[in-house]
């Protein structure tokens, strides 16, 4: 990369959104540079299969996940006036696609129409029908297993890989949910159940969240970036922490200033188009740190919306030890974490006094450590035997529920609190709304209700109020129909800065109970098509 080189596109961030964008634009002939604040963790560096006793602190201090939190990422955020939430930022090539269990759910048509159908929040500036072709394409690119379950609340594609076989506990749970009139389906996730796109199928070790050591789970470094690289149009700068986006006299983005964290030097890369994909908090941070005479409140922020409308998921969980499985001979239940999913169902049973719903993810916890040992009272031989006998009956599930989008919840930057490289750090302000509290209460009641239909020992894990965000935060650079209350149009393009795009979760207008990553990728794919078309027409 020479100093004077001007790229067609600079993509900031290499996670789900950035990976799609890089592949698509490079394959479309664009000369792309990607800035990633972290570095690659090679498959052989992953600690997924290490036994706890081979790790310094038995894995209890997150040693397996440590490679995903590079630099000072964990310490460079503050929470002010906030309820009990956590934004789980990672810094690594591939972002959270290296550290996820790959549940990929489509939003339903109603999820784009909260204002029209429920009278809350705002409608998205696009419909399910407009995004559907991109859901189809992205599922084909990444490889998704599951079924078309013919559910309006969870639209499906037609070409899924075979679903993951179920555990005994999941069949038993289905018996209970069937009796309650609640659907329970094979999970849809970006995990391969047969060889696909030159990647091997899952080997069912249960270490999805620790990084997949054979690339059976979709991740951008293993699936997208090699395709971008193969075009010869792709330049990757790792350890390149974006400081700000620079603009020309007309206010168009023309370069990104970044810190080379290897050498602690500030550098610049020039590009005709800038695509921001650094995840919800970091993307807002980058725009807010990009102040200039033309944009004194931050880039594309003349209406003061950037950073606002932070939302995500609230979630709670339960562990159950099924009587009919207790005492059985231990068997290998690791699998690919969750194998089944309970889609939202509260709308099926009449009107509620709150808006929104939840889905249940099932069996996403490890089977290696007997969680009941931390919950059962007592000690001695009887305690030890009880722990052992209960383990084959282990079933866990948790609700992932919608959090409302609200202007009063926001991310800002604090110029007096700098990170290790002198860049102002993000500060989160967040309070759950009345509706969030009502939804939390209803979701915890539903957990207990389903649990009551399962014969066994039940350990709920919830406290007295909601907690979030479960790594699913969205909304800080939202798209919308109204230029006064949003930053982007439906193509993730900034209204104020035509050659600036933001395609990660921060572009969401509202959220639903579904995990956001598939929608992030579909939106990024749609934006990539738009950029290609606009470039052809000379509009960008």
């Amino acid at each position, binding site marked *: 990369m020479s100093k004077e080189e001007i790229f067609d596109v600079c993509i900031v961030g290499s996670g789900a959104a950035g990976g799609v964008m890089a592949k698509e634009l490079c394959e479309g002939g664009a000369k792309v540079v990607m800035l990633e604040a972290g570095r690659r963790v090679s*498959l*052989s560096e992953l600690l997924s*299969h290490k*036994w*706890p*006793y*081979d790790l*310094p*602190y*038995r*894995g*209890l201090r997150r040693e397996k996940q440590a490679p995903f939190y590079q630099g000072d990422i964990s310490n460079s955020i503050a929470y002010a006036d906030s309820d009990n939430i956590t934004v789980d930022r990672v810094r690594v090539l591939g972002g959270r696609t290296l550290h996820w269990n790959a549940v990929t759910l489509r939003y339903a048509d109603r999820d784009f129409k909260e204002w029209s159908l429920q009278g809350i929040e705002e409608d998205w500036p696009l419909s399910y029908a407009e995004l559907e072709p991109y859901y189809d394409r992205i599922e084909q690119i990444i490889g998704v297993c599951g079924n078309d379950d013919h559910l309006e609340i969870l639209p499906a594609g037609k070409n899924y890989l075979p679903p*993951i*076989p*179920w*555990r*005994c506990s*999941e*069949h*038993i749970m*289905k*018996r209970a949910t069937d009796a309650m009139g609640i659907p329970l389906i094979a999970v849809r996730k970006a995990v391969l159940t*047969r*060889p696909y796109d030159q990647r*091997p*199928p*899952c*080997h*069912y*070790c*249960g*270490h999805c969240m620790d990084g997949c*050591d*054979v690339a*059976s789970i979709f991740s951008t470094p293993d699936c997208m970036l090699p395709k971008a690289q193969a075009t010869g149009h792709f330049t990757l700068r790792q350890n390149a922490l974006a400081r700000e986006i620079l603009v020309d006299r007309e206010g168009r983005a023309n370069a990104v200033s970044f810190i080379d964290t290897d050498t602690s030097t500030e550098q610049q890369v020039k590009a005709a188009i800038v695509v921001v994909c650094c995840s919800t908090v970091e993307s807002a941070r980058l725009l807010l740190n990009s102040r200039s005479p033309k944009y004194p409140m931050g880039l594309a922020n003349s209406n003061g919306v950037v950073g606002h409308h932070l939302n995500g998921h609230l979630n709670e969980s339960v562990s159950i030890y099924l009587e*009919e499985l207790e005492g059985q001979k*231990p*068997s*290998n*239940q*690791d*699998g*690919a974490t969750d194998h089944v999913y309970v889609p939202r169902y509260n709308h099926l049973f009449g009107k509620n006094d709150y808006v929104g719903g939840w889905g249940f993810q099932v069996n996403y916890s490890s*089977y*290696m*450590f*007997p969680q009941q*040992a*931390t919950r059962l*009272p*007592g*000690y*001695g*031989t009887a*305690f*030890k*035997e009880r*722990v*052992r006998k209960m*383990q084959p009956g282990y079933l866990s599930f948790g609700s992932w529920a919608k959090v409302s989008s609200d202007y009063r919840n926001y991310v800002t930057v604090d110029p007096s609190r700098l990170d290790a490289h002198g860049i102002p750090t993000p500060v989160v302000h967040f309070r759950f709304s009345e509706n969030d509290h009502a939804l939390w209460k209803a979701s915890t009641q539903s957990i207990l209700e389903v649990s009551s239909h399962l014969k066994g020992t039940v350990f709920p894990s919830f406290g007295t109020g909601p907690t979030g965000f479960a790594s699913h935060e969205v909304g800080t650079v939202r798209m919308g129909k109204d230029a006064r209350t949003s930053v982007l149009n439906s193509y993730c393009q900034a209204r104020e800065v035509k050659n600036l795009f933001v395609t990660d979760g921060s572009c969401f207008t509202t959220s639903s109970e579904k995990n956001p990553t598939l929608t992030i990728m579909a939106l990024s794919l749609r934006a990539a098509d738009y950029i290609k078309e606009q470039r052809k027409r000379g509009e960008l």
Partner: protein
Amino acid sequence: MERRAVLKIVALTAISQKLNALPCAAMGQMEAPAAPTATAYTLQFFSEDESRLLDQLMEMIIPADDHSPGAHEAKTNLFADLMVATSNDAVKKQWQDGIGLIREEAKNSSLAEALGRAAVNEENPTTDLERFFVVLKQMTVNGYYTSATGIHQEMEYVGNAYLGAFPSCTHPEHQE
């Protein structure tokens, strides 16, 4: 196991329908659990006396029985030493004080009786001694069930393996 070897195994198992059709028990663990290394551990926080006391207490919490060895064999006291030594001052103080409280409690009876009294309000502890029991038990549980003894001998855990197919439920009674 080298990644290349793993990939080879996974690819082979995926290609071979025959192999996929094998009962999963036959696949078993492709990577045998490594034997724990017998490196000498030097105490970093507790004294020899304190560590011996912890060893006794932890063995009472998770004892050896007919099925498997207990916390003593798993050297849970050494795990506790490492974890406490690398914790903040508040944690260190709680352990130092807690050991003192247990010792005091055992002066006029036995260690077993002192532990019993510390454990009476486990679910709603109100004294420092009772609160220490909760911490002590949690440490014992964490240390034991993450040790080779706890994982392989006690729990007979058979996962963390490379499987060619997932051993799904085949029990009609679960699927009715």
